């Protein structure tokens, strides 16, 4: 059985809390643990931050579209924009955490990508008329 729940918000930081709230509602219904939900809230926040900060640069804030896909494996979350394509390939090389040598040149954008990857089971990025980030977390066995 598959269901989809959509949330469309302006790509503005003031609406990020609504994304977390909706995620919380859906994920608790499905039966994720508190810790899994906390992880997903951060990961979805990072994906949305990328849209808000980069997708509509120099233009009017556009739309941030979030699709929550529910199936028997768990949740897959699609975060879409219609702005400047997010060059994932170049960013993935900057995916980074903080370790002894890097405090001086830590890339904060890289930290966000790193966190998405560490907190979710899968992170997929598609570029076409904008960017789509797909975050997946399996209910069991992650």
């Amino acid at each position, binding site marked *: 059985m598959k269901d989809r729940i959509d949330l469309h918000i302006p790509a503005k930081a003031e609406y*990020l809390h609504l994304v977390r709230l909706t995620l919380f509602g859906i994920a608790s219904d499905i039966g994720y643990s508190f810790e899994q939900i906390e992880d997903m809230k951060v990961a979805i*926040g990072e994906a949305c931050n990328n849209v808000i900060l980069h997708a509509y640069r120099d233009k009017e804030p556009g739309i941030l579209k979030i699709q929550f896909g529910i199936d028997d494996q768990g949740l897959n979350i699609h975060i879409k924009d219609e702005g400047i394509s997010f060059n994932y390939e170049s960013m993935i090389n900057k995916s980074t*955490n903080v370790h002894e040598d890097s405090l001086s040149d830590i890339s*904060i954008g890289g930290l966000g990508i790193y*966190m998405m990857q560490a907190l979710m089971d899968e992170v997929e990025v598609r570029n076409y008329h904008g960017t789509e980030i797909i975050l997946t977390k399996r209910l069991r066995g992650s």
Partner: protein
Amino acid sequence: MKVMRFNMDFQENNKEYVFFLSGELDLSVAPQLRLALEPIVNKTDKPMIINLKDLTYIDSTGIGIIISVLKLRREIKSSFVVREVPESIKRLFDLTGISGFLCDGTENPV
């Protein structure tokens, strides 16, 4: 009624400067946090403390601010302490590797 999802409380005594951060620290409030920390970050007369006991959410922008403060305080050879980190926030600090750089003031790593 407008709900404040994030709050900063600044206290100063003759020992230290303390910022109590509570609620959710995300992209929407990061600029206001930076603005509030700015006048204190450069002060070398007393240690600077951030107390996170009532913080319920942080993202990479918040962690980025902590890293910036850390670097700046190191440069001016002044003390920076992060206190009472909740378990869920500590998990993120551990995950990102920032834990190794933070002290809780008792000479133990966070």
